[in-house]
């Protein structure tokens, strides 16, 4: 017995290496990459006065406040504020703190400029979130405690800039007040605050800077109303636009006396038509008006006298004024001329001549200039030099200085809308010999170094060289398909309408294209990007063609706005075809069916519920008509609390000719409005592959999974509890989970969770659903799993029938056969709140699954599906233990080593996408938010390949040594035998 135990132990040691999937420090960066972005820049403040590191502080539409190196564009520090914590304004105070105003003027924070540490934070009482203004006085008197003024809602707060204490607070006792302009005349203690009350009343306040006392207040109403924009022209004149945006209204408010003067814009600018917009800029006596085709600079000569100075044709952009001295201000004008940009700097004192004129050549597709921020520096000859920070249409950020683009950042990648993957081209035959030899030599050298490392003979320099070789592996960055399927292109669509292809090896941008149809045009005023789909994946018939993707967009935010299609080549980024559709896009259904050129069939459902087939070829129509009786679709209407199922039918000749299909309503599920509202729906991924339909449980028993692609998971919550956590008591909160068959509308399962509420996240895969919610009774997050099994196949258990193939397990099944189902479920506590959830996907579906959970800390946690197995029990039997069932615990464990993102954070995490590699054990994981992170993971470890750091050289060396030993001993034995024979 002792021998047996001993043997058992030995074998156990041999066969069970560590279970953990964590990686070592030197493996970081081998398979993964991480890219940091900030998003589209809204404000930029330069900090270049002092010697030392020159930087620019920016705030972005992704609610990021960051400090960038002005020389390289690298991020010094960065803070991503919450999704709802919108940054209103950013400024620098005392020359050492960055001040941000966010959340509709209710949160003011100060960050240390050199390292980004938070110095103080103040929560301000604002009655209603409204347009808010931050005023940081410019006087830089050292020793004097500068006050920061925040105008928001109907109140003014003054805060000490050293510690954020509220010094005084003034309620302006008027509702619907919107302060438009705040300024402080030089060397005065009086703050002028100008704004509108409602839409027709103008108000000016004179406030004491030190005490907050309102010294004077004057109001006047204007009968035709304001549109809510105002620009300060001088110390006592403000120019506003009236409600129709066709009149400029100049308002003088000297000494509390308010006078209005209307100027009809066409009188001033004859070619004007449409609507004007005031550009927010602070110039002395100059006004910038954006009319539809150009920007017009106007000089305000008096209260009722305006004069055109210059007209700048579109596309162009103009910067804010940069004060150079007390009298002189400079501003930049950037103008497009195809691929070139003309960059001009002018002083407001002399508008006729230009201080600086440069032409910059633009490469790549970046679109028009959206914003310009100007900064100056002193040249060696004591004259002013200028640099500009440019925000482009694709949200990228450039620094232009001395006629050159010093650096650029592809910050559109911070706002990815959707993504897909594409295979790389197959490697061509006939690679030149020299290249091979070179790479062979390199290969040998690399392996020799590695061998040294393995044998602990390498010096520190060599260790560093080994690491560098591993990180910059030529293999992983090749532009061809590899055997394991690790090299792919990730094709992402950004909010700006730009499509970029990223290489999975190192994350570099292979190509990018700013789609012309997704740019503002006359036909499509407000286009935005929706989704990206696989359009053509050639593998059999059209091998010589490149794969392509379909980008779908919409002209405007209403559901009835026309849709936009664009087909982009996945290898080159060439736009094959793009069109604005005649109908809207409400649903898009990609089919697994393809036509003769391997284009995937897509059905687009428009707002009138008509179905349109793409591509519109006779071939695809024929294929589609064959399949049409089996095609159904459903629509989830959250507002109406209803789910409806439809089939397609053809009514009349016209439909036939235009390939338009009419909906035929089949079923509907109406949720009771008073007790349930739809909170979330989830479905299986269309391309998920399942290996087997059977689940083998303990004692060789079989359970048949209910595997259907037409399962819809719907979670509904109590209407009272649909808000934030804590907005409802446990008694009035509940959550219902439904599993619905979307073909027949049958509810397969329904379960209620009392005292539970959202936010809910769910993932559906194979025959199970995992969902995450908040349990109000336990004050903890919970995760539940539902597994669904097919009861009607349960009697297929006769071995002989199965051996002889006399069963119907592989026969196609219909949802209308209404198979009986059984359900197993279980719930567990989970520590984290969740931002996003996904599940791993492998090529054949054999490898066990892991859940990928985007945690609140912006990391991705991999959790084995085994922990979410409804068959877990407190004391599993021996056979269950052998099967791998983990004893039940009340909460799911979080193993620190199982963070896929290891030490990194994917700031602002929004989505996790998994793609199978060719190697069955491996899944590619791409997670995006403000940052991008890519890695590959093996949920059951890489059982089908040797690891990266496997020493081939050592293997080779061992073989060589063995062969040598064999030869030597053979020779020796021959010799000995000969000697024996002679004896």
């Amino acid at each position: 017995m002792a021998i047996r135990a001993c043997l058992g132990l030995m074998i156990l040691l041999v066969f069970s290496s560590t279970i953990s999937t964590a990686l070592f420090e030197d493996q970081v960066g081998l398979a993964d990459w991480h890219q940091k972005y900030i998003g589209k820049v809204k404000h930029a403040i330069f900090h270049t006065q002092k010697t030392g590191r020159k930087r620019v502080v920016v705030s972005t539409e992704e609610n990021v406040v960051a400090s960038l190196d002005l020389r390289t564009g690298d991020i010094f520090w960065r803070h991503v504020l919450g999704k709802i914590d919108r940054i209103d304004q950013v400024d620098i105070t005392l020359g050492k703190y960055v001040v941000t105003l966010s959340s509709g003027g209710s949160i003011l924070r100060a960050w240390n400029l050199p390292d980004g540490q938070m110095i103080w934070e103040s929560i301000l009482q604002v009655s209603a979130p409204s347009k808010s203004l931050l005023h940081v006085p410019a006087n830089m008197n050292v020793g004097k405690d500068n006050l920061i003024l925040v105008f928001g809602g109907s109140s003014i707060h003054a805060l000490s800039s050293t510690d954020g204490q509220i010094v005084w607070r003034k309620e302006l006792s008027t509702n619907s007040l919107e302060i438009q302009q705040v300024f402080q005349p030089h060397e005065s203690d009086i703050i002028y605050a100008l704004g509108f009350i409602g839409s027709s009343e103008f108000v000016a306040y004179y406030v004491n800077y030190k005490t907050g006392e309102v010294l004077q207040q004057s109001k006047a109403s204007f009968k035709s109303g304001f549109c809510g924009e105002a620009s300060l022209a001088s110390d006592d004149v403000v120019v506003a636009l009236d409600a129709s945006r066709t009149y400029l209204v100049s308002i003088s408010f000297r000494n509390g006396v308010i006078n209005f003067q209307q100027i009809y814009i066409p009188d001033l600018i004859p070619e004007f038509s449409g609507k004007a917009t005031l550009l927010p800029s602070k110039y002395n006596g100059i006004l910038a008006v954006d009319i539809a085709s150009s920007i017009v600079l106007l000089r305000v000569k008096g209260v009722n006298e305006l004069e055109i100075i210059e007209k700048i044709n579109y596309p162009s952009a103009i910067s804010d004024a940069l004060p150079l001295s007390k009298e002189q201000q400079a501003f930049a004008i950037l103008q497009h001329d195809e691929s070139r940009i003309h960059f001009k700097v002018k002083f407001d004192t002399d508008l006729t001549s230009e201080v600086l004129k440069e032409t910059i050549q633009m490469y790549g597709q970046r679109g028009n200039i959206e914003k310009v921020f100007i900064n100056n520096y002193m040249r060696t000859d004591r004259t002013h030099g200028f640099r500009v920070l440019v925000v482009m249409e694709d949200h990228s950020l450039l620094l232009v200085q001395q006629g050159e683009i010093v650096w650029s950042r592809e910050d559109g990648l911070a706002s990815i809308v959707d993504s897909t993957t594409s295979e790389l081209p197959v490697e061509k035959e006939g690679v030149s010999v020299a290249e091979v030899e070179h790479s062979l030599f390199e290969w040998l050298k690399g392996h020799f170094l590695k061998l040294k490392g393995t044998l602990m003979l390498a010096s520190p320099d060599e260790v560093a060289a080994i690491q560098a070789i591993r990180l910059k592996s030529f293999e992983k960055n090749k532009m061809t398909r590899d055997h394991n399927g690790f090299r792919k292109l990730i094709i992402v669509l950004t909010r700006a309408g730009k499509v970029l292809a990223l290489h999975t090896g190192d994350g570099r941008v292979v190509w990018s294209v700013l789609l012309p149809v997704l740019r503002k045009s006359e036909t499509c005023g407000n286009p935005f990007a929706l989704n990206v789909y696989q359009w053509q994946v050639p593998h059999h018939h059209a091998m010589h063609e490149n794969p392509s993707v379909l980008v779908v967009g919409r002209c405007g935010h209403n559901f009835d706005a026309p849709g936009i299609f664009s087909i982009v080549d996945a290898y080159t980024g060439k736009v094959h075809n793009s069109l604005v559709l005649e109908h809207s896009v409400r649903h898009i259904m990609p089919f697994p069916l393809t036509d003769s050129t391997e284009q995937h069939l897509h059905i687009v459902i428009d707002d009138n519920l008509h179905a349109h087939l793409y591509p519109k070829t006779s071939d695809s129509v024929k294929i589609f008509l064959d399949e049409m009786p089996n095609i159904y679709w459903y629509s989830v209407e959250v507002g109406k609390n209803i789910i409806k199922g439809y089939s397609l039918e053809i009514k009349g000749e016209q439909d036939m000719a235009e390939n338009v299909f009419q909906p035929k309503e089949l079923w509907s599920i109406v949720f009771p409005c008073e007790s349930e509202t739809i909170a979330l729906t989830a479905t299986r991924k269309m391309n998920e592959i399942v290996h087997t339909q059977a689940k083998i449980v303990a004692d060789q028993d079989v359970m048949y999974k209910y595997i259907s692609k037409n399962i819809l998971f719907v979670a509904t919550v109590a209407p009272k509890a649909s808000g934030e956590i804590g907005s409802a008591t446990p008694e009035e909160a509940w959550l219902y989970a439904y599993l619905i068959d979307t073909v027949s509308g049958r509810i397969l399962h329904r379960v209620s969770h009392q005292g539970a509420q959202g936010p809910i996240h769910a993932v559906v895969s194979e025959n199970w659903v995992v969902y995450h919610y908040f349990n109000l009774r336990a004050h903890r997050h919970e995760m539940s799993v539902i597994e669904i099994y097919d009861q009607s196949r349960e009697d297929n258990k006769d071995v002989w029938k199965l051996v002889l193939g006399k069963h119907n397990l592989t026969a196609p099944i219909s949802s209308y056969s209404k198979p009986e189902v059984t359900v197993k479920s279980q719930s567990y506590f989970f520590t984290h709140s969740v931002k996003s959830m996904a599940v791993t996907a492998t090529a054949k579906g054999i490898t066990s699954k892991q859940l990928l959970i985007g945690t609140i800390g912006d990391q991705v946690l991999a959790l084995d599906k085994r922990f979410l197995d409804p068959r877990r029990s407190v004391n599993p039997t021996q056979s269950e233990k052998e099967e791998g069932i983990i004893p039940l615990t009340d909460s799911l464990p979080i193993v620190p080593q199982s963070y896929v993102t290891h030490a990194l954070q994917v700031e602002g995490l929004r989505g996790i996408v998994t793609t199978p590699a060719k190697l069955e054990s491996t899944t590619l994981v791409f997670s995006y938010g403000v940052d991008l992170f890519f890695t590959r993971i093996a949920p059951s470890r890489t059982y089908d390949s040797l690891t990266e750091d496997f020493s081939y050289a050592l293997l080779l060396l061992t073989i060589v040594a063995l062969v040598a030993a064999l030869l030597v001993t053979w020779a020796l034995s021959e010799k000995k035998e000969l000697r024996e024979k002679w004896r």
Partner: protein
Amino acid sequence: MEKGKGLARRWAVEFAENSYSSSPVDVPDPMGFSRSSSDPDDASASRQKKEAEAAWKAQKAWEVAQAPVKNLLMMGFMMWMAGSTVHLFSIGITFSALWQPISALQGVGKVFEPYKDPRVDTLAPKLLFIALNLAGLVLGIWKLNTLGLLPTHASDWVSSLPPASEVEYAGGGLPVH
């Protein structure tokens, strides 16, 4: 045992050559010489010797036939040692337990060849030998089954079946936004 076998053969071969030299040479026997009526003393001695040899052969054949019993016991012990979980050791033992009887069965003729004799009945020992080896094989298969390596359950046949395809296809969901 091996040594004895070799000796017996050498001796038998030499003897046979002398006794059965049925005129390889073309010289006829001399007149009045009858080969059958040789020396009666010699004849009886050789018959006795032959009988003794046959008895010895039969005994040896029975011994050989019973040899797998030892093997069987040894295998049984090894299997008990290996336990019922699947790992390298138990698999190795099981497969050797399966392989030994099979190879022995394949070489039944060869094993009993030395004892082939018209006067010796090798059928019974052969049958015993075969039976014992079959028992060994059954033991091996039983072990294989206890390890769960025999496809005797429905689960073994079902897990390779792909999921059934679906007739219907449904798409849609929330309106894209």
